[in-house]
């Protein structure tokens, strides 16, 4: 179990967060910049003094202000990867990797240097100077350095934020790999929803120091306040399903989601594997009866669970597809013309191509929504 309760007065707002999740798994702290994500990360690491806090990881209490118990940052064994990497410029890559490893208490060494070097692909630049590394390489070394300090928790503070898109794509697979390879609890701070989609099992949505909502990504993706953070075009329900199989002719992979099936383009589909897809609300079409003669490859039956105003002239329709919800953004005109209302049976249409690119292998420990 990972239990975090922390309170700290900041300029303009009070950070007040409570998180209770099972370990291992990836907890994403998600929110706009300035919402208190990094403050919370520093409180967890012990680099900041909280007003009140209780932090416990797998039975070890790191801090409890009620009893006055506080393990200093240097003994917390929290592997912190900073946004700006903070590799020591006076050491080589190897020197940086060894820094935390040397200081890890005897008896905690279960992550070996060779393993980390191979996993993160660091073989070719162990002797290089930090100055000569690219941004992506730096973050990989920083990840390795944190891992080798034999942490009980990995704390990643926007490790990809300072990288351009290509470099982010270079580092993301390594993050996925280390998540799946070591059974370590991970806290991942981010303001990029696609990173959360790929990595997280539990999402904490932060706004001005408070938790707006938290839980599985599938339910957080339905929360109305997410729109303000990711923007209207990135809003969309996240569904998890298992791969049924790939049709050799069309190349489309069928995924069992709820009581229905989604046909999606996937890279390497392994039947039985869990997959997470996001259906962007702006790409979802609603129909009051089954439609034929359309190029749309996905048609799911459902019932309207809830309708909420979205914009001045659009509404967000929540459709229950049996074991999961899909969001559809429709114009007010369509809402009136189709006489959409709660409880009404409805058909959900999604183009296979609009799902493509939003399908990722589901994170470790994630269960299907059904």
């Amino acid at each position, binding site marked *: 179990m990972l239990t975090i309760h922390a309170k700290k007065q900041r300029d303009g707002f009070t950070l007040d967060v409570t998180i209770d999740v099972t370990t291992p798994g990836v907890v994403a702290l998600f929110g706009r910049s300035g919402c208190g994500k990094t403050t919370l990360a520093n409180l967890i*690491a012990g*680099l900041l003094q909280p007003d009140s806090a209780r932090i416990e990881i797998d039975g070890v209490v790191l801090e409890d202000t009620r009893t006055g118990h506080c393990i200093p*940052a*240097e*003994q*917390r*064994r*929290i*592997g*912190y990867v*900073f946004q*700006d990497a*903070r590799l*020591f*410029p*006076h050491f080589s890559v190897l020197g940086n990797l060894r*820094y*935390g490893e040397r*200081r*890890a*208490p005897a008896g905690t060494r279960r992550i070996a240097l060779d393993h980390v070097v191979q996993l993160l692909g660091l073989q070719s630049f162990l002797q290089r*100077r*930090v*100055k000569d590394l690219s941004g992506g390489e730096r973050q990989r070394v920083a990840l390795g*350095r*944190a891992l080798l*300090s034999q942490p009980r928790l990995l704390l990643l503070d926007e490790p990809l934020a300072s990288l351009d898109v290509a470099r982010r794509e270079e580092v993301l697979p390594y993050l996925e790999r280390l998540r799946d390879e070591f059974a370590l609890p991970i806290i991942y701070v981010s303001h990029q929803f696609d990173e959360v989609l790929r990595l997280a099992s539990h999402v904490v949505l932060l706004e001005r120091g408070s938790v707006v909502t938290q839980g599985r990504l599938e339910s957080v993706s339905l929360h109305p306040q997410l729109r303000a953070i990711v923007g209207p075009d990135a809003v969309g329900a996240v569904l998890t399903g298992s791969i049924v199989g790939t049709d050799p002719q069309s190349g489309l992979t069928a995924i069992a989601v709820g009581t229905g099936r989604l046909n999606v383009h996937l890279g390497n589909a392994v039947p039985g594997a869990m997959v997470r897809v996001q259906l962007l609300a702006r790409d979802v079409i609603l129909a009051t009866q089954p439609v034929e003669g359309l190029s749309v490859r996905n048609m799911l039956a459902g019932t309207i669970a809830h309708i909420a105003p979205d914009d001045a002239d659009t509404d967000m329709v929540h459709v229950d597809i049996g074991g999961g919800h899909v969001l559809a953004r429709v114009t007010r005109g369509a809402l009136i013309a189709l006489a959409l209302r709660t409880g009404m049976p409805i058909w959900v249409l999604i183009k296979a191509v609009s799902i493509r690119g939003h399908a990722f292998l589901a994170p470790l420990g994630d269960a299907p929504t059904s």
Partner: protein
Amino acid sequence: MLSPAELEAVRLSLSVASRSVLFALPFAVLVAWLLARRKLKGQILLDAFVHLPLVLPPVVVGYLLLVLFGTRGPIGGWLNDVLGIQLIFTTAGAALATAVMTFPLMVRAIRISLEGIDAGFEDAARTLGAGPWDRFFTVTLPLMMPGVLAGAVTAFAAGLGEFGAVITFVSNIPGETRTLPLALYTALQTPGGDALAARLAAISFTLGLLGLVASELIARRLRWMLGR
């Protein structure tokens, strides 16, 4: 090439300057660290106090040293009675006066380099398990080394020529406290000493220039080694 008296003055100057640097350096690092990294009450006062020798007439510094470290002074008396150390009229005393005068130069150089080091490196070392002393010696000190060395060499070069505080505190004794500038001053006071004075001035000039160039070269080399 140099006469025995000239050599003696050069040797004394080098000895006084190096002793003053060795003595003052640890304190300078400590004070620079306090000023740059700790937000203390009375920060401004400490800062002003450290920089006083830059603005005070050197004679005043020499006089204050005489009051404090003279054989009857509160500190000098104790040193003399308990440890048998006499500072007044000695090379060690000249080194102390030089250390006080060059202290602000050293603190300034070290502090500037320390302020240029992101405290985030120390935080990173902390999360990797390094305690306060550990991270000071493995992260902070190596990264501030260019400043430490630049400060030391600048203070050394300046220390070769400290005059006012030295002559006030430890007088002008051949073979003991008559450093380059004091020898030069003596030569000027002596009829027919012009040629000697010119030669001593040239030596001072050369040593000072060498010191400053060395300081810059060392700093550059270190910055390169530190990957900046």
